[in-house]
């Protein structure tokens, strides 16, 4: 039937071009992997080697100064590339004479550790509930999915503010606030996958062989969900860093002297008319890292589980 219908010129959706990618396109595609990958590797290295004291090694590191040490004579100095800048402070100093570069370097630790911790917690809870909902089904599934619906549309920020009111701002508040609703996305994806896997022959086979429900869930369903799970986890790195920065910007994150990118931007807002660099550089760091995380996540998704596109 279809073959008699004349092929029409479909302007909206051109056929994918597999051959003849121009050299420029190929280079661009390469760059869209290598640049983000480099940024992420640098982020991890910077966070680890900001200072080696925490590893029990001598008190040296790539951070030029201590992040909280104020240099009273060098307050509000512009970055080194500007007219009045000093080469001692590459990105300038803030109101208390603290080196902006050192603070950006130490801020990487907060961003990275919060996002990794939250991703591990939420992925764990989400997978557990998702597999349960998808494999057991029925009322359990209905209940879990209703909770997921609410969690996905409830503003996490309000919850974070409620938590901050009750237990006060801090590292734990941020991690809990991001985790309480964050598992829902994983649960929805894992449930969908588990529903599909439940139908497959190897699960039926396992059931015939007398495997228990728990065994099937963890030995048969879970390994088949893992690929998609890793993809979502990498895609979440950027989102979590962004979320952490918003909470720190509002002041419910890590408390005052410890540098985090979000709270640095908040500090800089008050000095906007005379020292733009205090707010500008941490924001650039957030944007660069989040964008790299997203690009890298997209790349891993295309390699490992292209079905998740358009998610």
């Amino acid at each position: 039937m279809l073959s008699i219908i004349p092929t029409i010129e479909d302007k909206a959706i051109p056929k994918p071009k597999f051959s003849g990618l121009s050299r420029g396109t190929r280079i661009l595609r390469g760059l869209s992997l290598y640049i983000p990958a480099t940024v992420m590797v640098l982020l991890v290295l910077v966070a680890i080697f900001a200072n080696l004291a925490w590893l029990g090694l001598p008190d040296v590191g790539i951070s030029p100064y201590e992040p909280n040490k104020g240099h009273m004579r060098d307050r509000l100095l512009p970055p080194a590339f500007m007219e009045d800048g000093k080469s001692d402070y590459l990105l300038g100093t803030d109101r208390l004479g603290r080196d902006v570069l050192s603070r950006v370097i130490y801020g990487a630790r907060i961003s990275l550790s919060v996002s990794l911790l939250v991703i591990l917690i939420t992925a764990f809870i989400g997978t557990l509930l998702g597999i349960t909902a998808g494999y057991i089904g029925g009322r359990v599934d209905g209940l879990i999915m209703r909770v997921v619906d609410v969690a996905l549309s409830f503003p996490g920020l309000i919850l974070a503010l409620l938590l901050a009111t009750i237990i006060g701002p801090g590292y734990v508040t941020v991690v809990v606030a991001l985790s309480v609703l964050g598992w829902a996305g994983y649960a929805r994806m894992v449930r969908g996958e588990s529903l599909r896997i439940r139908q497959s022959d190897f699960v039926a086979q396992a059931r015939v062989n007398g495997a228990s429900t728990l065994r099937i869930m963890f030995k048969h369903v879970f390994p088949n969900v893992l690929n998609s799970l890793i993809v979502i986890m990498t895609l979440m790195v950027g989102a979590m860093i962004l979320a952490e920065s918003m909470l720190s910007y509002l002041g419910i994150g890590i408390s005052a002297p410890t540098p985090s990118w979000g709270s640095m931007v908040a500090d800089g807002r008050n000095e906007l008319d005379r020292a733009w660099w205090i707010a500008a550089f941490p924001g650039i760091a957030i944007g660069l890292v989040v964008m790299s995380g997203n690009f890298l996540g997209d790349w891993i998704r295309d390699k490992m589980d292209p079905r998740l596109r358009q998610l």
Partner: protein
Amino acid sequence: MTRFIIIRLLQAIIAILGIMVLVFFLVRAAGDPMELLKNPNMTEEQFELLKARLGLDKSYAEQFWVYIGDLAQGDLGTSLLKQRPIVDMIGESLPNTLKLTIPSFVIGMTLAVFLGMMAATRRDTFWDQGVKFVAVLGQALPGFWVAIMAMLVLSVYWKLLPVAGMDTPAHYVLPVGTMIFFMLPGMMRLVRSCMLDVLDSEYIKLARIKGLPERTVIWKHAFRNALITPLTTLGLLIPQLVLGAVITETIFNWPGMGRMIVESTFARDFTVVQAITILTAVLVLGVNLLVDISYAYVDPQIRFQRS
């Protein structure tokens, strides 16, 4: 259909009750709320008096009944800090939030639909690349930072726009722009991908084979169908809107609900934060209910399958 609506309504009410219970115990599980109010200048007597006035001297069970009863009557309680009914405080700040949210929502949605459609119908052209670029930036740059940088350039250096206040239309440009920044990228991408899906369908091919003009195919046949999915995900836009409102109001000192909840958080005024949390839950569940009903109305499959 009626049965479907009633079931959904009941589910929503149960969910709201569940959230009320959760909030009640969360506030108390983390420690005695009175600890937050302790003040070295207060005598033992004053402290007990305050405790009694807030009803915190009663048992948890009694407190819970009072709390549920008050909420059922629309009484959200009294602010610990300002000693005013929370309903009055919301009455003052909600209109300001709406003045910010409604124009942002209307402009943002129109832009998102327009740009998403342009990108989908002119695939791989300047429009499409532009939309993708904006989406990538929008999902990576922190909104609060973009707003502050816009303020730096437009207000501090060029002195084109005022920094804070809400008297003239010029005062609205930066805050509304910031709000739009929070919701545009996601919605735009969704409209684009839904439109692409629809354009790929058989009935669009048929419409083209019939020789209908491209304009009719896109606006009469494809457009309406492409909007179903974005409409049903409006509920998922609430977190973005709330986030946008809180951040925008904090940056531009806008006297709305967002700033109110942030100020109450730092004052540890838990009755206000608790009240806003519950109101948010009602808003979220209400919108989801409306979306469910309208979806069932549009798509009979849902209606029959579930009831």
